């Protein structure tokens, strides 16, 4: 009896609409469905924006812009494809555009500022501090192109497969692998220059 009763109670899974259904509801004029979609994707979109852009306020603005674009283009979504792939494409397009414009602005202002750690720092014992890794990445990743950085973030931090990233960016899988290879190499070189204590990790394993 208890089992029968439990089966009659709707679970969260059955009540919660999937992304495609929510999009369908938005298209049929239900703004509350869009609000639900924004709420569901905020953390994901913001995290990706933050890692691509490296600044919380800019990442917030860009995330909002992504959702506005999502609203404006919701009719263009093809339910044959995964909603997240479509959303990620929007995030990467807006994010890459933003980094490009910022890079050109920064290059015009200051093209030589580099923070390099001294060799004395490097001699200190190595303890990987989790909190510092994010900072190390944001510092070193400035040498990556916007596309390299985006691919690196999607692969290494969002765990997307190369094939999925290729679909998001609308390029070949080999291009993704190529960008990823170059990104790793550039990051290692930059790590060696700026954080020699961490670059030892690669040397020891090489």
């Amino acid at each position, binding site marked *: 009896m208890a089992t029968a009763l439990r089966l009659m109670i709707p679970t969260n899974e059955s009540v919660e609409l999937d992304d495609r259904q929510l999009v369908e509801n938005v298209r049929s004029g239900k703004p509350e469905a869009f609000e639900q979609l924004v709420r569901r994707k905020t953390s994901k979109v913001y995290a990706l924006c933050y890692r691509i852009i490296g600044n919380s306020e800019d990442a917030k603005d860009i995330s909002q812009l992504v959702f506005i674009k999502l*609203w404006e283009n919701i009719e263009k979504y093809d339910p044959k494809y995964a909603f997240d792939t479509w959303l990620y494409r929007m995030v990467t397009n807006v994010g890459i555009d933003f980094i490009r414009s910022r890079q050109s602005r920064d290059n015009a202002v200051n093209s030589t500022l580099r923070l390099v750690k001294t060799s004395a720092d490097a001699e200190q014992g190595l303890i*990987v501090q989790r909190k510092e890794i*994010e900072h190390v*990445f944001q510092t070193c990743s400035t040498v990556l192109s916007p596309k390299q950085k985006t691919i690196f973030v999607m692969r290494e931090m969002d765990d997307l497969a190369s094939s999925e990233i290729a679909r998001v960016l609308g390029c070949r899988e080999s291009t993704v692998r190529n960008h990823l290879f170059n990104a790793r190499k550039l990051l290692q070189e930059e790590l060696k220059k700026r954080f020699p204590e961490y670059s030892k990790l690669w040397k020891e394993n090489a």
Partner: protein
Amino acid sequence: MISCQTFRATVRPGTDDSNVLEHLRSCDACLDHAVSIDPDFFFRSIGGSEMVPPGGVDNFVSDVMAQVRMRQTEGSSMRRLPLNQYLRAAAALLFVIAGTTGVYRFSSVAPAIAPITTAAVQIHKPLTTKAVVETYQSQNATIVEMPTASAADAKVVMIYDDSLPADL
């Protein structure tokens, strides 16, 4: 989440195992071990965690929805105008342009018109005396008596009442 023991036994370079990655991103004790196996775990240890935009998710969502509503209103007001109204507006604009062009052409060929002299006209309005309110009763009036420096000064009393005529 898997235990540290399981993690250390199963972690392999370049793994895509979600359980291993989840452990990597939350256990500080295993981070050094993972990095010693594959240095790429150094940057891979970032991520996985939920990130909240500054101000919180609720504020973020309400900001987005406010912008969406604003755009929706703008869009609907644009769409509300039917096609014939657009055509009417275009026709009116065309008419104004054509009229202005005609006037310009006419003024360029017309002889110069003598300037019109204007004289200032003074309108004498007879002064009238307003009726004096001798008796006055009201429930809503506020009476303010202005302070005077000496007893010889005229006493000024101000009455604030919405029911009194505005020009009194």
